[in-house]
């Protein structure tokens, strides 16, 4: 039976799908964090991922920092961008309609994309893998150590965020803001600070996805929109606001995309995740793991 696995093309595709799926899951987490606190959908989420990768390259190559430090600096810088977005843009539009909020985040995403194009140009950039070990064979399939890094990092981020929101003081306070901002304020939760934190945290998680994938797929200024859209697909498919759901849905999208690229058509691989997103929106808007009742209460 072991022969089915050994060196099979599908196993190689599945491994690639698992890796990229973990990235979609991280992007989906970014949406979920902001959604959980503010019920805003941030259309600039994909740009945070792009910026994460490019700032990683900036700190590593241009500033000459060691790789670990460069990664941390990149995540911190993008997290700061998220804070700035909330403090100077979102807060001003606080009382605007949902429509203007969408327009504002779209505008911010265009600014980030244009700024990245000015700063880094249109070429793709690569970071070295996080560990020096070369690719190795497992069951006749080539495994890049960076893929394992991506999977590990995603699992850790999902775990930490779940624990944070379920058990920690700050996490619970943040969730309370989404439930009912006025009630949260009445019991003494500084709602504004919590919203600010959620944007910073979400941007940082996006940046983690960006630096982690950069050694495998490279990063360029215009990758944000598609990554963001696929990540949103994972967020919806997993049930908006659900962390484990996002992880599973992200991996499902990644696998579907990778298998399509391998067996059907590589040109249409980007469409797979989007078609799944639309099917999810149309037929199961509460997601695979969200409950219908909870979806009815959501104000998105």
């Amino acid at each position, binding site marked *: 039976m072991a022969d089915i696995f050994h060196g099979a093309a599908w196993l190689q595709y599945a491994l690639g799908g698992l890796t990229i799926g973990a990235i979609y899951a991280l992007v989906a987490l970014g949406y979920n964090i902001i959604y959980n606190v503010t019920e805003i*959908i941030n*259309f600039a989420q994909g740009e945070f991922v792009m910026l994460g990768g490019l700032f990683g390259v900036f700190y590593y190559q241009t500033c000459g920092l060691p790789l670990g430090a460069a990664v941390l600096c990149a995540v911190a810088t993008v997290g700061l961008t998220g804070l700035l977005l909330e403090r100077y*843009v979102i807060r*001003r*539009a606080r009382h*605007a*309609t*949902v*429509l*203007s909020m*969408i*327009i*504002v985040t*779209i*505008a*911010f*995403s*265009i*600014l980030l*994309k*244009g*700024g990245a*194009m*000015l700063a880094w140009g249109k070429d793709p950039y690569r970071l070295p893998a996080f560990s020096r070990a070369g690719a190795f064979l497992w069951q006749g399939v080539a495994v890049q150590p960076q893929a394992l890094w991506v999977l590990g990092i995603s699992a850790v981020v999902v775990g930490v965020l779940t624990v944070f929101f379920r058990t920690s003081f700050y996490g619970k306070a943040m969730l309370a803001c989404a439930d009912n901002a006025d009630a949260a304020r009445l019991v003494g939760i500084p709602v504004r600070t919590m919203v600010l934190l959620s944007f910073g945290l979400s941007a940082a998680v996006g940046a983690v996805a960006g630096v982690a994938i950069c050694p495998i797929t490279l990063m360029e200024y215009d990758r944000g*929109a*598609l990554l963001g*859209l696929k990540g*949103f*697909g994972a967020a*919806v498919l997993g049930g908006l606001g659900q962390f484990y759901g996002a992880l599973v849905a992200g991996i499902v999208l990644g696998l579907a995309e990778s298998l399509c690229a391998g067996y059907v*058509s590589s*040109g*249409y691989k*980007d*469409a797979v995740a*989007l*078609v799944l*997103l*639309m099917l999810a*929106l*149309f*037929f199961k*808007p509460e997601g695979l793991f969200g409950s219908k009742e909870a979806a009815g209460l*959501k*104000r*998105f």
Partner: protein
Amino acid sequence: MTYREKTGFFALTIFLAVFPWIAGMSRSFGHYIDVMIFAGIFCLVTLGLSLLMGFAGQISLAQAAFFGIGAYGSGILTGHFHWNPWAALLTSAVTAAAVAWIVGVPALRLKGHYLAMATLGFGVIVHIVMNEEVDWTGGPSGLGGIPGMSLAGRKISGDAAWFYLIWAFVLAVFLFSRHVLHSRIGRALRAIHDDEKAAEAMGVPVSTLKVQVFVYSAVLASVAGSLYAHYVSFLSPGSFDLMWSVRFVLMVVVGGMQSLWGALVGTVLLTFIGNEWLQVFADFEILVYGGILLVMALFVPQGLVVWLDALVRSKARPVSTPSDGGS
């Protein structure tokens, strides 16, 4: 129409009638007529979009895709199959309507703004199809050799003829949209905009109306795309990507989404900015667009037309008493 609107519409018609003649007089402004043709084509898209955004309160990020369905539909039907351009235009518009209905019905039945994401995803899918179906669309290298159009047995040639054809479409659509807004449907849309739940309680079929407006906007975008295809006679997927959908949204936001005049003003202004004045910026263009969109959405959410209108009125009548608020 109010007196002001009548005057405005009359002035616009006169302006459009003499524009090719005035622009033709000066060598340095001669190409403005070409810019105005594009502005007219984009106006068809944004008139529909402004109904969707300003009155139905929904945003579509797929207008470039519907524009592309019209353009490639016309391009393929007339180029490959030698259809009559007008038949191709109609067929493409019907296709766009059907597609918009399929996308719109489930998305608009959901609460809030799922339509934004659904249309964003749909727009990207259409763009991928344009790039991949090389046998039909020519893929990234484009689709050329699209024939021109003729009307009443006469071939439309020369910039002036195209100008009058396109702007005749724009004026007709403007009048029709205005008529719709002042009918039962328009009042229902305004009720939805003010309070969706209250409108629904009063018996307004909220989601049906939203779908109808979405389909209407898609049909207009498709017709604009067909005219565009015949005017430029060459299509490439780059003209129908996400950035173009954002540009259409920007045109509506700049002019003001709650007035059809806003769509016209915003579209003409941004087409001139894009085609004429931003050429110096080249790659910076995207930053300028993002900046304008952000500033408008944050500080002038009502758009230039309403903002200027209010400014002029407050200057004209500096002392206003609360009692004349209703007049």
